[in-house]
């Protein structure tokens, strides 16, 4: 059941991407034989900070350029706790909620109902995302349902009482070569993965973005949500650059036929 929900979307991307335009990505470093040198250093902005701009997808499970041995999606997309030693430090109610969601075949996963994924799950979604870094702002455009995120890097503080939203309100500051992004203001009841791991409106999410080479992006995500967890916990998302291609328009709601079949048990 869990996997089935993803199918219609996955199928769509495969069909339409064959018709999409390919246009060479500018500024790719090359090896002597002319191939893209993905191990070259990350590009820099005029202010000396790393430039995170580019089209990115999960290293194990993107939709554009599957690598050998990759699964169809990053396994953390299904179960975010996969690499968390000892499992997640759930509050008792949160553990019960996950159990109940799994027992009900995850039929209420917002993704299956064309609702936004929220920022954590979005990092793991197989469809590409484009990061655009300009002075004062890091913009992330997502293929999945034309969503976008603004991360303000102009020195503003976090608001005290932000409007609750799926993506929250994000500000970023550089710590050496790492962009540290803090976000608050989440809607209550978000899902962090397909399994139904919860996030509440008390959450503070910290993302540490690092581009160790031209072709790699590492995002360490720390969830500090005392309502749902007894202590903060972290995961790492690895993404790779996608070259000479672009995002498609994806409209989840158009001709949507899945929802009536998401009935649970």
């Amino acid at each position, binding site marked *: 059941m869990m996997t089935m929900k993803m199918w219609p979307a996955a199928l769509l991307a495969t069909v*339409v991407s064959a*018709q*999409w*335009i390919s*246009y060479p990505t*500018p500024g790719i470093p090359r090896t002597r034989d002319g191939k893209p040198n993905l191990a070259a250093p990350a590009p820099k902005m005029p202010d000396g900070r790393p430039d995170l701009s580019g089209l990115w997808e999960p290293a194990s499970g993107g939709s554009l350029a599957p690598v050998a041995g990759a699964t169809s999606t990053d396994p953390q997309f299904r179960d975010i706790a996969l690499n968390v030693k000892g499992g997640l430090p759930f509050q008792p109610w949160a553990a019960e909620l996950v159990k109940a969601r799994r027992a009900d075949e995850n039929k209420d996963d917002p993704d299956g*109902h*064309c*609702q*936004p994924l929220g920022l954590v799950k979005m990092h793991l979604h197989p469809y590409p995302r484009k990061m*655009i870094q*300009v002075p*004062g*702002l890091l*913009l992330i*455009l997502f293929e999945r*349902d*034309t*969503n*976008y995120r*603004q991360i*303000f890097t*102009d020195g*503003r503080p976090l*608001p005290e*009482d*932000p*409007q609750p*939203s*799926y*993506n929250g*309100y994000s500000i970023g500051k550089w710590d050496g070569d790492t962009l540290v992004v803090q976000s608050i203001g989440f809607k209550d009841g978000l899902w962090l993965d397909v399994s139904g791991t919860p996030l509440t409106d008390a959450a503070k999410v910290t993302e540490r973005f690092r581009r160790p080479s031209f072709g790699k992006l590492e995002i360490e995500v720390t969830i500090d949500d005392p309502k749902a967890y007894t202590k903060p916990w972290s995961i790492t998302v690895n993404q790779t650059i996608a070259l000479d291609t*672009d*995002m*498609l*328009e994806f*409209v*989840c*709601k*158009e001709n949507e036929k899945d929802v009536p079949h998401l009935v649970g048990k």
Partner: protein
Amino acid sequence: MMKYIGILAAFAVVASSQWLNYPTAGIPRTKDGKPNLSAPAPKLADGKPDLSGVWMADGQTYFFDLAAGLKPEDVTMLPWAQDLQKKRIENEHGEDPLGRCLPHGVPRVNTNGLFPFKIIQTPGLVVILYEQLNLFRQIFMDGRKLASDLNPTWLGYSTGRWDGDTLVIETSGLNGKAWLDTQKSRPATDAMHVTERFRRKDFGTLEVVATIDDSKTYAKPWTTTTQKMFLQLNTEIMEFICNENEKDIPHMVVK
């Protein structure tokens, strides 16, 4: 008629009161310290105007009627399109895709004066983020050409170039499902090519003119009158999820 528009408007008003107000950087001021909206448009290092900012259409004139201010003979619709338009109006606009949380299409996406949009201008790419439906458009400024067989989409594929101080955006690859406007319910097809001319007249004003070239629907290309967009200071676009807790669609009964 105004079924969904009223509901969306109510949402925006309630929610925006809780949003963060953060001062917009780089506002020119008059002597008494007020924003000088008639100051010249800012320029980028390459001398081109910088269109970046949060903008909103001046009312809903063009959202309701894209041909506002034109004479009837300026917009000559082919007979099938006239019939379809009549049917849509008779059906009280109940089939408008936008009322079903589907994207506006181009150039309608610029026209709704209830929701702001944000332009972010970078070398090689202009991005427009729209608050309503959380949509974005990429305008490729890197010299690429529009391909001949594009994947049909609601917002099309767009390239841009400068004509003096005017950003000229060419869009094709549209899916032909979107309506051009709301009250007039004008149709278009996948043959449509849209040219939008964006000009930042002064610091606070953006003027947009759109040309509709769709020989399957209109006897000849036609061009809108000048649409005014105003800069929105000290605010931001919000997250807008049309499909969340959506209750309207069952009430949009077609006759």
